[in-house]
């Protein structure tokens, strides 16, 4: 089945140790999103790619970077994780990126920072 896959589902890292989360999709969608969701809060958009065009949210810390080497894959790099970066990280895709379009979410990666 076409889907959005996130690996790993659970990631533990140490304070300040770089970590990479991955997302892949078989939907062939143009747009891929990364959200951060803390407990009992709204998913917060960090950035998204429209094809190869990177769109960063104004309040996304520089500590967060992203790469999209091809249509199928997108990575979230956290250069120096702090305790406040512990959260669920959700990847999503959509075909057109417009607000009439459904976003398809992966199951998320729960990041723990020790």
């Amino acid at each position, binding site marked *: 089945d076409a889907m*959005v896959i996130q690996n790993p589902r659970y990631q533990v890292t140490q304070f300040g140790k770089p970590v990479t989360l991955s997302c892949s999709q078989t939907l062939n969608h143009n747009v891929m999103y990364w*959200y951060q969701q803390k407990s*009992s*809060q*709204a*998913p*917060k*958009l960090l950035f*998204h790619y429209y094809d190869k065009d990177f769109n960063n949210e104004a*309040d996304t810390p520089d500590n967060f970077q992203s790469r999209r080497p091809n249509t199928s894959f997108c990575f979230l790099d956290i250069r120096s994780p702090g305790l406040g970066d512990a959260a*669920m990280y*959700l990847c*999503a895709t959509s075909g057109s*990126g*417009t*607000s*009439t379009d*459904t*976003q*398809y*979410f*992966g*199951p*998320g990666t*729960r990041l723990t920072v020790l």
Partner: protein
Amino acid sequence: SQQGEEDPQALSIQEGENATMNCSYKTSINNLQWYRQNSGRGLVHLILIRSNEREKHSGRLRVTLDTSKKSSSLLITASRAADTASYFCATDAVPNNNDMRFGAGTRLTVKP
């Protein structure tokens, strides 16, 4: 920044009862979507309502939109234990119809 605000933050009902969740937003919108999230999982799209629509139905779901009050409601009829989840509204902001912003969600618990 967050656009939608859901209320209540948490709702607990018995199986078979109806559940109503509300979403209010600050600026004019083109479209509003509702999503569901089971605990520890990704979000799943439920329904889209456009700014020129007042009501939409999908199975046991009924969504209304009142643009004059900048609010939407999601009604789940004849709830089931499997409806237990968090429900989020997401809105864009006129004139930009690209970026969606999620509210903080309503946590629904349906007791068997």
